[in-house]
């Protein structure tokens, strides 16, 4: 079953890869470098994560091939976007929200898997240039001007690691004898819906020598999609429906137990 899914995912994902190629050309290595090594490939078990009524997170299996003598780093992330966070401070005995800080760009999800820690296989400059590892991620975060950027960026990363949204540790990529590799990513149940990307990097000699990527779409489907859309955009209608459903449930339960009570 898993093999079938995997096959289906690979087949489905191919058009995505073609579509993604122009956008990732910018952050990949020059074509010349790619000629000298066999290119890295990547396949993800799912091209789409569907948030249904029974959703409790998901597991992504990532497989592919890479040159045997190179390291592999996998990155699951979203395009960076604006994000506003509350700043907590002590007022009297209580911890309250005392302000807000705006990040001009931060990924919603950032998870790494690698054969070895990124710090051991990539130079600090390359980590920053490719946005790989804790330092690379931190350098990519843009904070509003006029605040201590380093401090706020570290706190954002710490918060998102605790929430299960970020993972900068790496590790978890195993290599097969025939040049294959595999890894698993856990998708958090509270992970926001949107378009995400799985990037695979082949690394040797302290630099990226090849890369490949797959798009992953995360979206609410069925009743979940309908209800959250209605709740967000048609508040009064949704509120009336919620009242009606509660009313009917309450009356039905009352009638049922009333009848049971009389039967005794």
């Amino acid at each position, binding site marked *: 079953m898993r093999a079938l899914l995997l096959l289906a995912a690979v087949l489905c994902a191919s058009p995505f890869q073609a579509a993604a190629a122009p956008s990732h050309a910018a952050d990949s290595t020059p074509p010349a470098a790619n000629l000298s090594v066999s290119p890295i490939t990547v396949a993800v078990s799912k091209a789409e994560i569907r*948030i*249904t*009524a*029974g*959703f*409790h*997170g998901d597991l992504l299996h990532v497989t592919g091939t890479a040159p045997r003598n190179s390291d592999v780093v996998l990155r699951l992330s979203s395009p960076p976007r604006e994000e*506003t*966070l*509350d*700043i*907590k*401070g002590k007022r009297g*005995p*209580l*911890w*309250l*929200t005392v302000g*807000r*800080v705006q990040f001009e760009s931060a990924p919603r999800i950032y998870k790494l898997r690698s054969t070895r820690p990124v710090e051991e296989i990539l130079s600090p400059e390359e980590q920053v240039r490719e946005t790989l590892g804790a330092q690379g991620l931190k350098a990519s975060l843009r904070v509003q001007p006029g605040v201590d950027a380093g401090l*706020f960026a570290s*706190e*954002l990363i*710490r*918060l998102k690691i*605790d*929430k299960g949204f970020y993972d900068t540790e790496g590790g978890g990529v195993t290599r097969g004898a025939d040049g294959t590799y595999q890894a698993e990513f856990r998708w958090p*149940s*509270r992970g926001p819906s949107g378009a995400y990307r799985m990037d695979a990097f082949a690394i040797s000699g302290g630099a990226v020598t090849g890369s490949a990527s797959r798009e992953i779409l995360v979206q*609410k489907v069925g*009743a*979940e999609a309908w*209800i*959250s859309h209605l*709740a*967000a955009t048609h*508040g*009064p209608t*949704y*509120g*009336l*429906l*919620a*009242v009606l*459903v*509660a*009313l*009917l*449930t*309450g*009356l039905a*339960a*009352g*009638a049922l*137990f*009333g009848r049971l009570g009389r039967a005794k």
Partner: protein
Amino acid sequence: MDIFLPVAGSNINAAILLGLGALVGFMSGLLGVGGGFLLTPLLIMLGIDPLVAAASGTNAIVGASASGTMAHLRARNVDVKMGTLMLAGGVLGGGAGTLLVKALRGEGNADVVIVLGYVALLAVMGAVLFVEGLTSQVKGEDDLQSETPGYRLLQRLPLSTDFPASGVRTSAIAPFILGALVGMLAAFLGVGGGFFLIPAMSYFLAMPIRVVIGTSLFQMLFTSAAVTVMQASVNHTVDAFLAVGLLLGATLGAQAGARAARAVKGNQLKVVLALLLLALSLKMFDDLLVLPRHFLTIPGGR
């Protein structure tokens, strides 16, 4: 089995959701109190955003009070005139409360205000139940209906009106004020407000206990319905999945609770529940004082 809550944006185990509803329903069946005051803090403890917990609690109360209201209406235990005035106050108070929640949320502190509200509410209710349990006073069973100081005070307000169903004459503004207070409590804390309204109707309106329960349920049903729609429109914090799950658990629990109430001694239970409420109050207060794990947090999330 897990259920993904579309508005709360997180998943919850179905058994925990039903169990929580059943626990609250059991308590309310056993003690004859509404139980909304227990529901919201327990949801907050489970990690649900306090705003979503309160608004979804209000939604659940609509269902929980529906069949009781019908039964009391049929038995003519509802002073509809009094109840409608309270309801008018409830809609106004609930609307004001909903807008205040929105303003506080803009500041990022609505959750702290809700938790503080519960710290106070649970402490007071715990203390009252504790004393009741020890002194074996049963609140509300002695028919007040005498002219209490509270009744005389509110009677002096203008618009004196006859309420034949209750057999009292008081200002039309009095039930309006009580209703507005309950509406405000419903919007902030997601409670039905029976714990406040039932003694207040005896004390301030001198209503006979026969119509107090029915009228309280009547205004609770419609006020919570109005507050649910306002919360859904203004704050988008009503999670219907959460509400219906709790409701299903609560109806089952309430049956078991009502049955158990005939079998066990009420006073020891009151003391146990009182201690539970006091402990919950202390825990929630302590959570506000301890150094947070993060000094940056996601707005509206915990």
